[in-house]
């Protein structure tokens, strides 16, 4: 493109320092928040008050802060579920489906052992809780691994398969908890039975133990990718699958592994939201909302550029923003869905920042035409 006496082109960047990744991440988030201001224009409140309402509820109100922490754990686990396959160049859009699978599997344990009522509890609760966690992770891993096998064995597009699995599991949950389904609550329709109190996840300072899993996984994943041969293989496969194959990396095993691990994290996220959150302890009728929320995990993994520790502050911020936006929406009488709109805006600014991350804008001065080109044709006559 020509601007005045300069030639402006986009050139691929050769180096991408970590500082630059952080800069584009912050830029994308700030731009999304600025664009979200347009949503608040219809409200009668000044813009700064709207943002103050969001942040003070999410991070300074005791109830809000606790809810933010709970949601951060969920979003972090979803982030890893997307991040691990992404490092191998694969897109795991199946977060909602894997979350639902984790929820169903967790509730299957008390259902199978007939322990919906606490007086019939025959096994030690700690054992049952561990079994619930393991079965949730395993169910998520199986649903994820299915897409991974199809991808590796037959080159089936993993985006389509995981999306189909999302719909299948959405309706499976509906079947389980509605209209006389096996998990339906004896009291009301449209939600599952409630977990008996002994099976509630143990709390550490009011926060479920899943927080330890989420933070531990952040450290574990960063070490896995940075320091281990397996992590190196995953990254090599993500950068260039053909070259990785010549290097002796087996695509089937690798695709299966990243999808199993990712799906396992999403299953844990399902366990966390449905079976470990104080005040919930059931699969509620609006479970679809938590499936939608898991898409924030996609964005935090993308914005963190595959760094699990880098994703921690981003996931906490998004948890606070999505909660605070819901709160502000009620207070300012905004239409439903500010949190959804923010999700969309963040995705848009991420795509824009991705361009600036991959390319740099090069300005080159066009040589001034002081020297006339030599005539190629003889003058007439």
């Amino acid at each position, binding site marked *: 493109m020509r601007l005045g006496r300069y030639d402006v082109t*986009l050139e691929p960047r050769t180096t991408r320092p970590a500082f630059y990744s952080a800069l584009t991440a912050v830029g994308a988030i700030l731009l999304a928040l600025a664009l979200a201001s347009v*949503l608040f224009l219809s409200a009668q409140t000044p813009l700064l008050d709207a943002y103050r309402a969001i942040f003070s509820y999410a991070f300074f109100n005791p109830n809000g802060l606790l809810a933010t922490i709970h949601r951060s754990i969920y979003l972090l686990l979803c982030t890893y579920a997307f991040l691990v396959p992404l490092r191998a160049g694969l*897109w795991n*859009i199946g977060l909602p489906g894997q979350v639902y699978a984790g929820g169903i599997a967790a509730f299957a344990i008390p259902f199978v052992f007939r322990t919906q009522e606490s007086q019939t509890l025959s096994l030690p609760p700690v054992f049952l809780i561990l079994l619930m966690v393991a079965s949730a992770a395993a169910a998520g891993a199986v649903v994820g691994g299915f897409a991974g096998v*199809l991808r590796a064995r*037959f*080159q*089936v*597009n993993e*985006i*389509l*398969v995981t*999306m*189909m*699995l*999302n*719909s*299948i599991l*959405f*309706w*499976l949950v*509906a*079947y389980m908890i*509605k*209209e006389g*389904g096996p998990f339906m609550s004896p009291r009301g329709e449209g939600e599952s039975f409630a977990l008996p109190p002994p099976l509630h996840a143990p709390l550490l300072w009011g926060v479920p133990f899943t927080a330890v899993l989420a933070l531990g996984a952040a450290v574990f994943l960063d070490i896995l990718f940075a320091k281990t041969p397996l992590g190196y293989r995953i990254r090599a496969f993500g950068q260039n699958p053909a070259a990785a194959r010549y290097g002796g990396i087996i695509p089937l095993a690798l695709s299966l592994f990243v999808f199993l691990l990712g799906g396992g994290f999403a299953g844990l996220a399902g366990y966390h939201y449905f079976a470990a959150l104080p005040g919930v302890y059931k699969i509620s009728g609006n479970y679809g909302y938590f499936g*939608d929320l898991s*898409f924030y995990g*996609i*964005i935090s993994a*993308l914005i963190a550029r595959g760094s699990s520790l880098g994703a921690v502050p981003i996931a906490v911020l998004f948890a606070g923003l999505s909660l605070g936006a819901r709160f502000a929406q009620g207070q300012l009488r905004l*239409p*439903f*869905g*500010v949190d*959804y*709109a*923010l*999700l*969309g*805006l963040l*995705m*848009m600014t*991420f*795509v824009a920042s*991705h*361009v600036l991350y*991959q*390319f740099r804008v090069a300005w080159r001065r066009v040589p001034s035409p002081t020297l006339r080109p030599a005539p190629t044709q003889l003058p007439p006559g």
Partner: protein
Amino acid sequence: MWELLARSLEASTIFLFAALGELINQRAGVLNVGLEGLMLFGGTAAFITAQATGSYPLGFLAGLAIGGLLGLAHGFFSITLRGDQVVSGMGLWILSFGLTTYLGNPHTGPLGLARITNFFGLSPFFVLGVVLVGITWFLLFRTTQGLAIRSVGENPAAAEASGISVTAVRYACVLCGGVLAGLSGAAYTLSYNPVWNYNFLMGWGFVSLALVFFSMWNPWILLAGASLFGIMWQLSLSPELVLPGVLSRYVWRMVPFAITIPILSVISTPWFRRRWGLARPEALGRPYEKS
């Protein structure tokens, strides 16, 4: 029975419009995985406009325009900036999913206009769909422009060398694809099911995307596939018409998605690809850089 069939064919039309647009896109080498997003945004824009003005034509116009605009946005990212087409497509989908939930929410509920007239229960859009399939087939396989589109999707460097502007052809195709996706969304919200609800598509767009792969990039096979899926979809919505009292209705809702996965797997096998898969555009999903 006729009513069910007519309704199924109308459902097929939704798949058909979107998938036809995607087919044109992909024939030119541009993959848009955010098809569902384009449909959501087009459908919502059409619904809001039609409700505000009380006019169907204006509603459709808005849907087509939004669809085309988003198609061009995807084109700008994937053609001009040579970005990753999956990133841009997924971005468009989540952007539309989020924004339409917010923008459409005050309009939740029925459209409140007289239904579009149909011929003995058959939607006029189905007729339009068949005509469009014919036009697309003729355009792609019987005209110079179609040859240009296909060559741009197979080998852009060779196309460029023979004097075709890859950029121009691809932009024309993404515009076309976007407009058709917008039409699909508008046909859904204005005719097939004129009630706005958040995320009303719930996977129609992704099934359409899968249909393009099933069709082996041939419009006539696409028409057959879309009709089959329309019938299956409609049956999954009202299974009691055929098998009353068998299984929960929620189980039936899984069927179209559950059938999609094995079909996708079969057409992706090396055997199938060697035997039938030659139609896959060689440069699909790959940005083209003029050298």
